């Protein structure tokens, strides 16, 4: 943990001391009780400081919250590139309760990773994990997973920490719906339950606090159908994170990128609407969210609208809608018809 290391050491030592002191007190208090005085396991839970709570827009039944890991003093946050990132307008709350808007600096679909930056004032500094100190422990090693699972923590509360071991290092054939997990190299399989709402993007560390990997998203194994608890090791992610931090571009492909389609992110930030996620093939083009004061909002779109026509062409799927909108030039008039509670509503707008 980079420049914080000396501080961490000191605090770590002190917390051990305090705990030992408490034990003595308690033993004294219960007097003749014959309870054993087992030296407690000394887990270093300091990395709670570098995990931020992310809050954005939920999509359908996907969650509106997640986790991210600070990797620079300048507020760079690494997280999983999931629906939360795509919908934009992401707020990050640091361990000390400060709240920041975020920018997406870069993403890599093949690594399933996104790098954000907190919009902070000049001079703000953040605790972070130095990825160059990352370790890759062997299977059987005890680890701690830090995340905002189930958004149990709010405000200045530290995120949750669960413990377990690395069960195996393995390639992973998994996904959710039609989405396939893209990382082809080996990932760390955990026996701790990390496959929870909001845990993706949290930090996996060893019990001394050294960074190990980025907690993965909720997905199921393709063969067994079970939810997989995994983390992508930092030795896989570090090169791509570094490239993004240096301003370089990495694989920009989206999930469906052979033809020209608008991404979820473009649709949200430029047009101001978010569609229900394409968890199954042929997902209908339902509008899940309309950003207030956006072009879509001003044109009259509402949550729950089903888009059925774009410039006279029939829209059967959300994929079709994104393909059609990708062909529209900026400023061009678009005639869109939506089905709103069984009534067809024509809407006209200029492409943003």
């Amino acid at each position, binding site marked *: 943990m980079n420049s914080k290391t000396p501080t961490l050491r000191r605090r770590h030592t002190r917390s051990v001391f305090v705990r030992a002191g408490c034990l003595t007190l308690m033993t004294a208090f219960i007097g003749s009780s*014959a309870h054993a005085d087992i*030296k407690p396991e*000394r887990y270093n839970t300091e990395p*709670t400081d570098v995990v931020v709570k992310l809050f954005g827009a939920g999509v359908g039944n996907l969650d509106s919250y997640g986790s991210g890991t600070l990797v620079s003093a300048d507020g760079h946050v690494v997280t999983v590139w999931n629906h939360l990132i795509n919908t934009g307008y992401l707020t990050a709350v640091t361990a000390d*309760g400060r709240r920041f808007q975020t920018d997406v600096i870069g993403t890599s679909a093949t690594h399933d990773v996104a790098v954000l930056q907190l919009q902070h004032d000049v001079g703000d500094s953040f605790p972070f994990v130095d990825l160059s100190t990352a370790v890759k422990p062997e299977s059987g090693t005890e680890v701690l997973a830090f995340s905002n699972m189930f958004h149990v*923590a709010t405000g200045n509360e530290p995120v949750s*920490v*669960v*413990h377990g071991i690395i069960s195996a290092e393995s390639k992973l054939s998994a996904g959710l719906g039609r989405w396939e997990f893209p990382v082809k190299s080996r990932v760390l399989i955990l026996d701790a339950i990390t496959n929870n709402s909001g845990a993706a993007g949290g930090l996996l560390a*060893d019990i001394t606090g050294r960074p190990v990997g980025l907690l993965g998203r909720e997905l199921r194994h393709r063969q067994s159908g079970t939810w997989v608890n995994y983390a992508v090791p930092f030795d896989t992610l570090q090169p791509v994170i570094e490239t993004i931090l240096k301003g370089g571009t990495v694989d920009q492909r989206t999930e469906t990128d052979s033809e020209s389609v608008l991404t979820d992110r473009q649709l949200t930030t430029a047009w101001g609407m978010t569609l229900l996620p394409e968890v199954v093939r042929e997902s209908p083009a339902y509008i899940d969210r309309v950003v207030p004061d956006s072009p879509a909002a001003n044109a009259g779109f509402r949550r729950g609208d089903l888009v059925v026509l774009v410039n006279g062409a029939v829209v059967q799927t959300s994929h079709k809608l994104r393909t059609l909108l990708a062909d529209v030039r900026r400023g061009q008039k678009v005639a869109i018809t939506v089905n709103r509670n069984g009534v067809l509503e024509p809407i006209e707008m200029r492409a943003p």
Partner: protein
Amino acid sequence: MSSRLVTFPAGWTALLSASLGTLAAEAPTWQEREQARIAVLEQIAPSVVCVMPPNGQGGGSGVLISPDGFAITNYHVTSGSGDFLKCGLNDGRVYDAVIVGIDPTGDVAMIQLLGRDDFPFAAAGNSDNVQVGDEVMALGNPFLLADDFSPTVTYGIASGIHRYQYPANTFLEYTDCIQIDASINPGNSGGPLFDINGLWIGINGRASFEQRGRVNVGAAYAISVRQVQLFLGHLKSGRIVDHGTAEFSLETDTTGRVIVSDVIEISEAWRRGLRPGDELISFAGRALTSANDFKNILGIFPAGARVPLTWENIDGRRTTSIRLRPLHEFQQVPELPEERKPDDHDDPANPHDDGDDEAPEQWAHLLESREGFTNYAFNRQQQTRLLKPLTKQLKRFKDRSGTWQLSVSADAVEEPMSLVVAKNGAGLTQGDTPWHQNADTLDSDSEPTDFPGLLTAALQWHRFFRDPTDSWTDVVYIGTELQYETGQPVDILQTQFGSITCRWLFTNENEFPFGVDVESGSGQDEARLLFENWSASNDIPYPQRIGVIVPATGEITWLQVNAAELRR
């Protein structure tokens, strides 16, 4: 657990040692740790209870806390299970148990196991000392696996502390709880959480499940032992115990300060000077960093508790205390919404078998139903314990219903004073200044300036001593608490007469009361007295010192009682 241990590579200990630096020499080996843990589990397992409804369908867990069989479990375990339960211990035996008291908001219930006076029980630790990362062990009966009632042990760490879990479609609110990653599954509800040394630190009651069905996902919540302990004395009263609420609200401003947004104008906090815009610094002895903290701190206290608060405004910093008002005022045992009905009652044909649990004949006398109570038998028993000795003492003073005349003095007052208390009124003569309080009107403006509340409280004291039992429209045993100003553990007996509520405080050392708090109407300060060194003249018993707790300052002004007699 041991099977996992052997999978660790040999290098692990070296890694641990490296991280511990100079402490490495003390670090026990894995084998030593395992042996110690096994020894601890052998000690604590006998205190773990398998709680079952009488028809044997489903069940939960609990923990014994004293040799006379009192045990704690979740309200959502006892709810719908009837008033008598069957409880299995790891000696393989099944004991009858009776419901004692419930705290529906806190999801806590107290039961009493019957038939022994030497039950094994757990020793409580201090849940305020739990730190994130501490090892914990959850004991209980998930999925009712053990036919011989030996509890299942799951191991984990504290994942978070001071967590708040919203009521979620019901009134069950988990405040200031311990989040753990030890596996908690259906049937674990109500069971104890222990620290690695075997001290009881919580009651496992709730877990995050979401879309995974009702299986462990590594996030469960234990009610802290501190909260349970604050309610223990109340639960033994057989009442439906309520949580407290404060009559003001808070918000966190943009700079992170906790600001009072609203104060009810008839509240005690308002009378002490708390106003919207003031910054709340601490509550119940804990510093506040957000409005959320407040909910967490407030949630562990029972209604009626007196707690300190400190606030700051342009006039500076002030500390005072307020009494928490009731949150729900349950008159009847509240019903849990369908989806909150325990995981543990999984007999679909007969989900809430409340009716056919016939009381075991030998224990039937331990149950008495009454509105507002879980089990009135326990309340009656406690009332008798406090009132019988007092009544017996008072019998020797046959004319005690007459007019009492007490000659009193105080440090701050030069001239001797006379306190006269009768059925219809009370008066204090302070030099040339006479104060008079009428028993029927009780006007706070008529109270002596130096001793506010003295006359109002003395009138209730006179009423109490005329006939301790039958002077009232209602008598309820409330429970045990620490008296706020003195820290003295007291039993509280609450009496009602018209709109006047008295809380009579008793200690174990004396048949006569230790003090009284009198509430004569909303929007008015309580009249609060402490009684010290009980003595007696030929006519009446009297305390040699009377302490008047002054609401505005929280200070106690003492009166010496030099003589007490009947005015003839």
